[in-house]
């Protein structure tokens, strides 16, 4: 074990920094809110602003979008450790790669693993951000119990016909394509009758009804499917084998997210120190202890992430990573709440002229609610830890 990276990583890091120094869009400098992640929108309320699209394409063209991928997929065949160096540096600079993660984060790895050659051809545009993707998993009656999804796809010659409804579909109002999880065998046990279809969002019969987030700004959507015809070759993997892919997608989602999670948490805790100073509370014994406690939690979590990464990089499974999603989101929520509390009566002021940092902390607080729900709630994470990491029997 050692603190410093090796030569190979140092060179890689220098190249990355040179690239970022030259190309990072000024919008990030101008107070882009990494810690709150701005709810996936910029100040103008645009879900994927034009400057962010250009930035993602620039990253791709220079091999810096997903460094582990080959150049034709926006990478440079980087090693796992180099990838970690990359994610750290971006987070340190509070620079986001993209304003829409489903394409590069979920769709691409899933297609590369499970897709046929034709489908793999969709990957470059997904990674470059030229195609915006959304993920149609959740339904009104299938949230945590994703395998309970009911949206039906029936085979009709060389097509599938989809009927049903998805909900909480982020980016649906701007996406060109969707990963839709459908039930293809209603008689099979629920995990065994699910398939994954690639659907063009402009197919007749699809209706997108935007839903505003709690924050008012950002959106997800309800997506309705009425007799939507999809070519049969749009199926990813085998018919009724979709559950395996959902497990893959979520794993891909989790493996790299911890770095961003801990960096966001670090940023939040440093922010708390600043708020305490500005509010004249930096000599208050209780405030100091509370903030130090959160610092302890954040920095031990960071260490846990690295420890997991070390076993992952050596090819072992990393149970440590099961903890990261739950812990960063839960501790983050507590830290955001603390940021409001430090402001006393002004804690809830949403008036940019009056509240601390333009009401940023209330916004963080609301945003932090999503992190303990989306992508597997904290309760579901605890079930997973208990059963898969600690080996306790299923209930």
């Amino acid at each position, binding site marked *: *074990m*050692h*603190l*410093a*990276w090796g030569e190979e990583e140092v060179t890689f890091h220098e190249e990355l920094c040179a690239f970022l120094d030259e190309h990072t869009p000024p919008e990030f400098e101008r107070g882009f809110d990494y810690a709150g992640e701005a709810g996936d929108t910029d100040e103008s309320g645009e879900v994927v602003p034009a400057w962010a699209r250009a930035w993602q394409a620039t990253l791709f063209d220079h091999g810096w979008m997903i460094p582990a991928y080959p150049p034709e997929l926006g990478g440079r065949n980087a090693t796992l*450790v180099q990838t970690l160096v990359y994610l750290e540096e971006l987070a340190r600079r509070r620079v986001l790669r993209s304003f829409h993660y489903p394409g590069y984060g979920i769709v691409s790895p899933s297609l590369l693993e499970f897709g046929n050659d034709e489908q793999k051809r969709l990957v470059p545009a997904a990674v470059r951000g030229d195609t915006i993707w959304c993920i149609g998993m959740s339904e009104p009656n299938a949230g945590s119990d994703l395998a309970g999804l009911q949206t039906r796809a029936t085979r009709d010659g060389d097509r599938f016909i989809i009927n049903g409804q998805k909900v909480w579909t982020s980016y649906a109002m701007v996406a060109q394509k969707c990963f839709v999880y459908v039930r293809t065998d209603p008689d099979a046990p629920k995990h065994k009758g699910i398939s994954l279809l690639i659907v063009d969002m402009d197919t007749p019969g699809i209706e997108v009804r935007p839903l505003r987030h709690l924050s008012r700004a950002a959106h997800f959507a309800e997506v309705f499917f009425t007799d939507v015809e999809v070519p049969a070759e749009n199926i990813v993997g085998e018919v009724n084998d979709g559950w395996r892919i959902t497990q893959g997608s979520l794993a891909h989602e989790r493996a790299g997210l911890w770095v961003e999670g801990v960096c966001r948490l670090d940023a939040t805790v440093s922010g708390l*120190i600043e708020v*305490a*100073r500005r509010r004249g509370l*930096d000599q208050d*014994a209780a405030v*100091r*202890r509370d*903030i*130090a*406690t959160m*610092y*302890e*939690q954040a*920095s*031990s*979590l960071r*260490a*846990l992430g*690295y*420890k997991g*990464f*070390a*076993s992952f*990089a*050596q090819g072992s499974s990393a149970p*440590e990573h099961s*903890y990261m999603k*739950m*812990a960063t989101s839960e501790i983050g929520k507590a830290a955001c709440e603390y940021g409001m509390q430090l402001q006393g009566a002004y804690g809830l002021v949403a008036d940019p002229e009056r509240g601390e940092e333009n009401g940023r902390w209330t916004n963080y607080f609301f945003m932090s609610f999503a992190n303990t729900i989306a992508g597997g709630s904290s*309760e579901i*994470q*605890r*079930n997973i*830890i*208990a*059963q898969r*990491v*600690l*080996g*306790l*029997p*299923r*209930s």
Partner: protein
Amino acid sequence: MDFSLSDDQVLLRDTARTMLAKECPASLVRAHVDDVTVADALWSKLSDFTALGDGPASDLFLFVEETGYVAAPGVFFPTVAMFAPLLQALDHELLPSVLAGEATGTVALAGADGHFVPNDEPVKTFVPEADRVDWVAVVDTGPKVRIIPAGDVALRQTRLVDFSRRHFEVDTANVKSDTLALDPAAFDDVVAHTTGALAAEMVGTSRRLLDMAIAYAKERIQFDVPIGSFQAIQHRLAECSLAVERSIAAVQYAGMTLDASDAERFRAVHVAKAAAGTAAMRATKDAAQVHGGIGYTWEHDLHLYFRRALASEYWLGTARWHHDRLAELLFER
């Protein structure tokens, strides 16, 4: 940052695990309650590892995590994690014999308030194993250090809830001895090293408690099913294991920063001891709760380990105390 263990470190850890499982079973820890001489046989094995007192903190931490797992009684910790680093900072002639496992020692530092901070009080408190080491290093402000034969100091045991480690009040008022001056910065590193080592020991003890709770949750049947299938038990243990895993990682990070003399090392040690203390308290309470009535008996081994966990949390600074020291570093006073 690379957290992977080297082949030598894996070997060290595995060797320690196997040796300690055999040499320090619960029966030995239990026997030690009434007869402290049972620790002598264990020391004859542990004394093969005293060279760790002069090696990388990371290696020492890996090893003492395993001694914490078995709640090893005896002079290993004070000799290797307290006395040796102090001798090394002093460049003292006793060091080679300590590293060779031939001489043992402990450190007397805290005053009446119990804080591990230099003072000029003649009576030092919470001095571990002072009745069965060869040497006591007494630290006063300066810091100034006196290395005194243990037979020359007046001792009074301070009985604690923990039977696996014993603490003493050491009165050095009437002892004449040479005084050695130590660079304050070097002393800060000694304290960080010792505190980090205690945190490492604690995470081992917490891991033991968690392992016992998980094993019991799998085997105990109520309402016709293992209690580990109840979600209330599952979520309690999931949170407990998170606290324990965090503390293990924090200890490892602290060891790495100490070995690199990194500027972060003092923060990292406060984080490690605070995380270890929080996890130890959590593991103590959760393991007791999951065991139900059986865990409340003297006959069950659980208390041997949670007594050790408790005693470690209250020694060398509680989590609260370390959070407050950490705040001084974060807020620059």
